[in-house]
């Protein structure tokens, strides 16, 4: 995760337009050969194998036994599976929606208010502070907070104790575990949209803001009618990349809660890992991973579609 290619990502989503000029194209396919071999071995074959395995019962040793769609019917009746996707929705809120909304307000305030009233250095220092958690490996971010929220020796209980609060097992309490993980992910994620949105705002013609200011438009009106429409492409990219990141989240769950307590923080990624490597239900794990893949592809297609529609209208 951390440290995304800020403006590189928005560009990457757009398809380069081929030049109309024809040039000789013979012989270039040779350069694709190394990749063709490696992609087949590392992505294509494993991906197809995983789909194949999802239709079998297999312990990882011996021969897989063909089951047809049994794993999938079992999956859709499995309360833990649905719970894992509900928890995943909570993590999409924490990793994509809240950071995008808060990031928009922060980026616009830093750019349009702090940058102008207090100078660009103040704005970029604050931006760096918000961004710092993003440089951590996501698993290390989990380790940091695992220590802070530790029930026996963590700093959070010590701090709240100053105000007379009872010590609490933040990650061990079924009611608190998911909100705690969500809070950690908001902390981790917030800097990414701030940086991308501020880079996007550089593009906006300052005359737009000046004209609006002269017309007496309030800060919120400028935010709503200039900032948001102008950086719409960046908003889509942030929502898409963060939603996918939330759907794939594994490291923090592994180091903080292992999906517990009692499945309160179980996510599809960890659920499949459990079935693969802890319970030796390889077929079932493969079915979970396949469904997760389909969800991710559906989300990607959905975002690219609405983005295309927007582009077509404007």
């Amino acid at each position, binding site marked *: 995760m951390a*440290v995304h*290619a*800020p*403006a*590189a990502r928005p*560009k990457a989503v*757009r*398809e*380069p*337009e081929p030049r109309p000029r024809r040039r000789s*194209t013979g*012989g*270039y396919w040779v*350069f694709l050969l*190394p*990749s063709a071999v*490696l*992609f087949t071995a*590392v*992505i294509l*074959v494993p*991906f197809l194998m*995983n789909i194949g395995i999802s239709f079998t019962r297999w312990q990882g040793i011996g021969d897989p036994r063909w089951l047809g769609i049994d794993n999938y019917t079992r999956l859709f009746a499995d309360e833990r599976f649905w719970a894992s996707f509900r928890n995943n929705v909570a993590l999409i809120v924490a990793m994509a929606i809240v950071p995008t909304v808060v990031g928009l307000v922060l980026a616009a305030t830093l750019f349009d208010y*702090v940058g102008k009233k207090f100078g660009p250095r*103040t704005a970029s220092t604050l931006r760096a*502070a*918000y961004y*710092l*958690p993003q*440089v*951590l*490996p*996501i*698993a*290390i971010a989990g*380790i*940091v907070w*695992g*220590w*802070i929220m*530790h029930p*026996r*020796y*963590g*700093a959070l209980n*010590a701090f709240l104790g100053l105000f007379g609060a009872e010590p609490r097992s933040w990650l061990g309490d079924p009611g608190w575990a998911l909100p705690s993980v969500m809070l950690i992910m908001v*902390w981790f994620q*917030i800097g990414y949209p701030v940086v991308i949105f501020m880079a996007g705002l550089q593009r906006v013609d300052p005359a737009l803001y000046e004209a609006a200011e002269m017309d007496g438009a309030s800060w919120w009106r400028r935010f709503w009618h200039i900032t948001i429409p102008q950086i719409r492409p960046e908003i889509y990219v942030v929502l898409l990349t963060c939603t996918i990141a939330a759907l*794939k989240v*594994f490291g923090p769950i*592994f*180091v903080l809660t292992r999906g517990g307590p009692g499945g309160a923080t179980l996510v599809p*990624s960890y659920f499949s*890992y459990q079935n*693969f490597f802890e319970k030796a239900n390889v077929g079932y*794990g493969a079915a979970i*991973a*396949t469904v997760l*893949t389909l969800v*991710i592809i559906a989300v990607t297609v959905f975002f690219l579609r609405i983005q295309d529609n927007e582009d077509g209208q404007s």
Partner: protein
Amino acid sequence: MIRKYSVLVSLAVLAVVMLVPFVIVTLNAVRSPQDYSANGPLSLPDGLYFDGIVEFWNRVDFGGKLWNSLVISGSVAVLAVILSVLNAYALGIGRVRGRVWILVVFLVANTLPQEALVYPLYYLSKQAGLYDSRLGVIIIFTVIQSAFGTYLLASVLGRFPHEILEAAAIDGAGKWRALWRIVVPISRPTLSVLLIFFFIWTWNEFFLPLVFLISNENQTVPVALGVLQGDKMMDATMSSASALLGILPAVVFFLIFQRTLTRGVTVGAIK
């Protein structure tokens, strides 16, 4: 006036809140266990105490973990850039037939969750004798990172000035020569940004290295620290020391590469 500063103060308070976890982990990493039991985690430490960090370093052979992470991330960065350049040369400049579909394949590969590949990769790498080896992880991440690299570079090279290549062709330079003598040197800024991103992304990876690197001597920094969580031997100050050791390399990379990374914003936006 009051309003002007209240905005700044609330933004600064938020910045402090964001930084508190870093500060509190550092404070407790350099605190002695006696100090911790006397004063708790919130006060300033009595003095600088590095024994906890040293003891943790030696116990997990942290130097070895750093080396593993460096070897894996460094190799992946170099190899994935090479692979991306080769692909992008064929797609962006060579415009081979079916290039749009090939790009779609790379895009899909880029969004696939690793969970959908992990078990077959685990099984196949055992067959190939690459399980629990740094080489196995290097090969896998080279391919995964180059999926993104190809996608990005193909669009950058699609706008490569053709006049230069045509001039080279007239001078008798073959495709291979044109790639290494002209395309690569001219695209250096983009390639170095890509190199750094691949390095950091691979350093930060957790899921596949956790599955593939089970023996102690092969583990990377995040995996080694991740599997120690909940270890009964870890007391308050030593846990804190372990978190600090995970934070430090990431912050160091960020400080070293910051300038290249900000330059990357403009490089990525080449029209």
